């Protein structure tokens, strides 16, 4: 391989990687990324859609991200977000799929229903004092065993 060819490959790959600096910081891509994670200015409020398991006594419990169809937390958040914003056509099958996962899990034998909710919590209060804001119901379904 000629030196010019090696130089061209080097410049092309490093240049392509650094080209991310010419894009808007939030215009992420793959594998050429602007790496916006943990970079944005943020408050401590976390606004999210997620699923809750409900016991016969009405107590609620978080359900594993994997019940959404993805075990990756951020992808699971995205799945719930998309479903909530798409409405009942997406929410109903998603809720049923989560309920089926609950029914198959012996550790969740006390869960009788699933709620898909939207909430905005103050993250420090949630983590340090377990203080939760109101969780607004977006869809609900029963767990059938």
């Amino acid at each position, binding site marked *: *391989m000629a*030196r010019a060819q*090696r*130089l061209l*490959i*080097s410049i092309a*790959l*490093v240049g392509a*990687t*650094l080209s991310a*600096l010419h894009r808007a*910081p*939030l215009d*992420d*891509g*793959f*594998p*050429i*990324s*602007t*790496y*916006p*994670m*943990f*970079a*944005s*200015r*943020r*408050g*401590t409020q*976390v606004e*999210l859609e*997620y699923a809750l398991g409900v016991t016969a006594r009405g107590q609620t419990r*978080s*359900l*594993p*991200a994997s*019940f959404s*169809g*993805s*075990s*990756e*937390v*951020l*992808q*699971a*958040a*995205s*799945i719930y*977000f*998309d*479903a909530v914003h798409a409405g009942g056509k*997406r929410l109903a099958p*998603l809720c049923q799929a989560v309920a089926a996962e609950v029914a198959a899990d012996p550790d969740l034998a006390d869960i009788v229903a699933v709620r898909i909710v939207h909430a905005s*919590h103050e*993250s*420090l209060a*949630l*983590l*340090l004092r377990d203080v939760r804001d109101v969780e607004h119901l977006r869809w609900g379904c029963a767990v059938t065993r």
Partner: protein
Amino acid sequence: MKRLADWWFAPAPAERLAALRIAIGAYAAVYLLVRLPDLIDSALLHGGSFEPLGVVRILATPLPPWLAIAITVATIALMIAFALGVAYRVVAPIAALALLWTLSYRNAWGQPFHTENLVVLHVIALACAPAADAWALAPRKPGGDYGWAIKLLAALTAATYVIAGLAKLRLAGWDWLDGEQLRNQIAIDNARKVLLGASPSRFAMPFLEHPSWFTTFSVLTLVIEIGSPLALLGRRVGRWWALTAWGFHVGVLALMNIVFPYPLFGLAFLPLLEPEVLVRRVAAGIRRRRGTV
């Protein structure tokens, strides 16, 4: 200019580049194998969550699940052949393209995983280099230049860290250094885990109660990220930077429970080290053990 070219094209042994091919190729194959259940889950997700990015932008709708899964399995086989150095000039570019496609597809479901960018860039760079002139199942005759390719891998590592550092200044400005932004990011990340049934970091809680720590963490983060090009200046500074950057990822794991396996296993920093020396030591140890048995 000549000094720059001499530095970039400084000679290096074929075995060093070969060791990088084996380590990075094997990592990619094992990573895909371990992630196979997640990759299959992604292939089965609802089309409404499909947000194509990178090369996957050529698709308007997701692939049929069987095809996405078949491509993933083929990519694993190709990465194994890549690591072994089989028919490298043909296999390596195909393997690199397959890895680019498979991981781009996985990232096309609403959330890019920044843990996977660098391995793809490294595999593409290795595919363009004579990385199978040694320690390959079908080695080609050594005699090429290898130093530039190793420098290229190291430069790609440094470039990704610089971009990550500059992103913080571009998005949050110098305020990012006061620690509040980092503390908020860590709190939100852990809260999201709690709400979505995943494990938050236990180490984060005491730090979240004492915000002053985060000023130190923020300054260190930016020094490591923006200072990454210094690692290219020499072997010793490269080793020190690699060690501190590895420590940074240990910190991310401790405070956010986020695993960046490529740097945590040292692969991201391997081009700054002498991996062939380690391979030779291991091989010599095995030979000695066999000799004494």
